[in-house]
């Protein structure tokens, strides 16, 4: 095989984590190479290094037998590497031709744009891909799939010989995806090498030649598609990990009452209907890939995002949850996915962040008693273990773990007994993770009920009493007891069929 790209012993660390540890990889011309791994395995970091966005701490990139150093994305493009990002980089109000030539427009002798020449070149590229794109339409008028084809066309117009496709099918319908695959096969015929990142096993088996598996920033192995199967790949991805210290799971009481029941929750008219029950004192996991609809379902249940249809019962009584304020009144609290964007008011001190939905507690005759507020804050900080100079410390200066505890404290200070934790340990160091896990278990012991949304398999298997596995917007499996196993969760979340 004619190797076009080689990565040799690539290592990259970020403060506190080793994102990549001596990864080697070689890609041949005319090959579609899948990169497989859980969230946090290091795929995105590796691709960012390959496209010049990050620089490796050690290791080298060899293109066509020549060692290269990329200082920016432009260097990568010059070496013939192009990346199709998950979030498109197209300007929505320009058409396909204008987007393809953005920043390197062709001009004639008068210094004016030669629109004809650019249009002809764009036509030639799309002919090569075998797709029809309305060149006069604004990008925003095109379908997501067509936009992706324009991205690919743009990459080809830059003479890219190595294309990186980062979860390109995540937003496509099945028929659009198969159109994409036929384009990928066409490009393979023309000798273009592709690195394909996807979580969907069936896609990988449909279109790829070889598969490299990463886990926790380490190279696990490489397989030919013909020589492997889903079970083996899942085993490679999940492996045995250094488990974080999870507190022991208590015995489940079958008689525990149902505190929250969601029936037939549909986000849109023709989206799947999901139902689930939450028992008192349990941790119910929402597992699945990023974008599988876990957060959306939780937000729809508490009314933070609209639902087409939903039926909610709390302690057996029907309840109307129209917005998060309704949910709060009924005792449901949310720890949002993004601490900084949705959880905290970063300019506020710990006190103000904690008491934002608690002010009535400290208010008499319309005025807030600062003294009572501070006293309550100190007590809560001690209870959940926020480490900070004092209640007046700005939350922006706290570590991720302490920030998360501030958001948790906000709800514990309330009458809330049902908590939704959305990726509670994302970006938090190991020690703080263990503290949050212990806190969660202590809460369930006190009669709290928790929904844990997590993309980290060990967290799901280590913490949850029951697990609902999501795939493409639907709950596809409900696991309990011994069946809560990494590979079982992964199998339901990715392939479904084997």
């Amino acid at each position, binding site marked *: 095989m004619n190797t076009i790209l080689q990565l040799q012993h690539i290592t990259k660390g970020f403060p506190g984590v080793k994102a990549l540890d001596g990864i080697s990889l070689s890609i041949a011309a005319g090959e579609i190479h899948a990169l497989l791994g859980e969230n946090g395995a290091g795929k995105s970091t590796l691709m960012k290094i390959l496209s010049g966005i990050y620089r490796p701490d050690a290791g080298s990139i060899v293109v066509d037998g020549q060692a290269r150093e990329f200082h920016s994305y432009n260097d990568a493009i010059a070496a013939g590497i192009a990346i199709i990002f998950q979030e498109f980089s197209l300007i929505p109000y320009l058409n396909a031709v204008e987007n393809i030539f953005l920043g390197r427009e062709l001009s004639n002798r008068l210094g004016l744009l030669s629109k004809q020449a650019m249009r002809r070149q764009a036509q030639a590229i799309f002919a090569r891909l075998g797709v029809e794109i309305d060149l006069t339409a604004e990008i925003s008028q095109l379908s997501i799939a067509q936009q992706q084809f324009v991205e690919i066309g743009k990459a080809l117009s830059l003479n890219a010989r190595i294309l990186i496709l980062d979860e390109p099918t995540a937003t496509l319908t099945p028929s659009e995806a198969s159109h994409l695959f036929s384009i990928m096969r066409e490009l393979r015929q023309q000798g273009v090498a592709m690195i394909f990142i996807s979580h969907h096993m069936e896609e990988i088996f449909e279109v790829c030649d070889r598969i490299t598996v990463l886990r926790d920033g380490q190279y696990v192995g490489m397989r030919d598609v013909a020589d492997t199967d889903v079970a083996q790949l899942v085993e490679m991805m999940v492996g045995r990990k250094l488990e974080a210290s999870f507190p022991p799971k208590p015995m489940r009481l079958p008689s525990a009452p149902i505190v929250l029941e969601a029936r037939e929750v549909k986000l849109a008219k023709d989206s799947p209907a999901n139902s689930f029950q939450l028992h008192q004192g349990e941790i119910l996991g929402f597992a699945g890939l990023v974008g599988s609809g876990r957060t959306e379902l939780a937000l729809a249940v508490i009314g*933070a995002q609209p639902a087409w249809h939903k039926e909610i019962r709390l302690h057996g009584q029907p309840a109307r949850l129209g*917005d*998060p*304020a309704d*949910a*709060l*009144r009924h005792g449901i*609290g*949310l720890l*949002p996915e993004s601490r900084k*964007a*949705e*959880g*905290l*008011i*970063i*300019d*506020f001190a710990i006190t*103000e962040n904690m*008491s*934002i*939905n608690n*002010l*009535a507690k400290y*208010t008499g005759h*319309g*005025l*807030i008693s*600062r003294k009572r507020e501070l006293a309550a804050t100190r007590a809560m900080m001690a209870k959940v273990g926020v480490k900070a100079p004092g209640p007046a410390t700005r939350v922006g200066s706290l570590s991720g773990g302490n920030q998360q505890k501030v958001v948790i404290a*906000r709800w514990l200070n309330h009458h809330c007994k049902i908590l939704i934790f959305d990726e509670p340990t994302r970006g938090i160091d190991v020690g703080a993770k263990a503290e949050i896990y212990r806190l969660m278990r202590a809460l369930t012991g006190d009669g709290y009920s928790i929904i844990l949304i997590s993309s980290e398999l060990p967290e799901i298997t280590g913490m949850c009493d029951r697990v609902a596995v999501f795939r493409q917007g639907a709950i596809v499996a409900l696991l309990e007891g011994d069946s809560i196993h990494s590979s079982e969760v992964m199998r339901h979340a990715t392939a479904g069929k084997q």
Partner: protein
Amino acid sequence: MQQPVNNSSLSATPRGATSQGAAALWTLLKKSPAFLPLIGLLLVSVAMAATTDHFFSSDNLINIARQVSINAIIAVGMSCAILSGGIDLSVGSVMALTGTLTAGLMVAGLPPGLAIMAGLAVGIAFGVGNGFFIAYAKMPPIIVTLATMGIARGLALLYTGGYPINDLPDWFEFFGRGNVLGVQTPILVMLLVFIVAYVLLDHTALGRYIYAIGGNEEATRLSGVRVSRYKLLVYALSGGTAAIAGLVLTSRLMSGQPNAGVGFELDAIAAVVMGGTAITGGRGSIVGTLIGAIMLGVLNNGLNMMGVSPYLQNIIKGVIILLAIYISRNSSKRS
């Protein structure tokens, strides 16, 4: 500025309770969002005192206070709007509408108390309208209030036919020209409005929510605060302070002027921003706004006393506003 250096050396080697207390007060003051605006006000005042004769005379200072009162009152509502992450461009027009309406109703023979109430109610109603479109129809504040700015002005012109409404009852001049125990009424009204706003913003839940919405609206909503309701209240407040300012101005002129208050929204925004409030919301203080308004007043007053041409005055004021905002932005980035 020598002072900070002096005081930090004091706090490093404490010599007594008084100097320690002074140092603590100084660090507290330095942390306050109104600190830089205060320095700015001092600098501008010193500059004016150095170049004019009677700047620090009590007559002139009272004069300045009265001149800034109307802008300062509007700036209170504007502060709330900007702190919550929005803006209210309609205030100048709402002033004109409430002023002419109150004047018209009084001339038509309505009991004066009732006329004043009607004026205030219309101002607040306009604010509620703004708030409805912003908070519930989710339209951008700048667009909504730009539209209602035109509507309020148009209503004022329509109501008056474009002519001022004169012959107001004599006692009505109390609000603009009268005094209570020697303090001129506009200054008194201004102080009252500021005290109420201070308590509201710093000591009530509504005030906390206003800052929180400006700081991170989504986080505030997800924590269970009915954000839309409080945003509506913010614009109602802004309409209310514009109406109060409109009444004071009408009383001062003893005439309901349909063309009053043109461009006042810009002065109010300038006062708020020069007072150290972030134009993106979430950070700032009502005390800072008062200082900002006085700073603008001192500039106007001093430049007039120096006999600087009005054309040049605009340029100087613009440059100083730019400078003030540049300094406060850089300092907020550092913190």
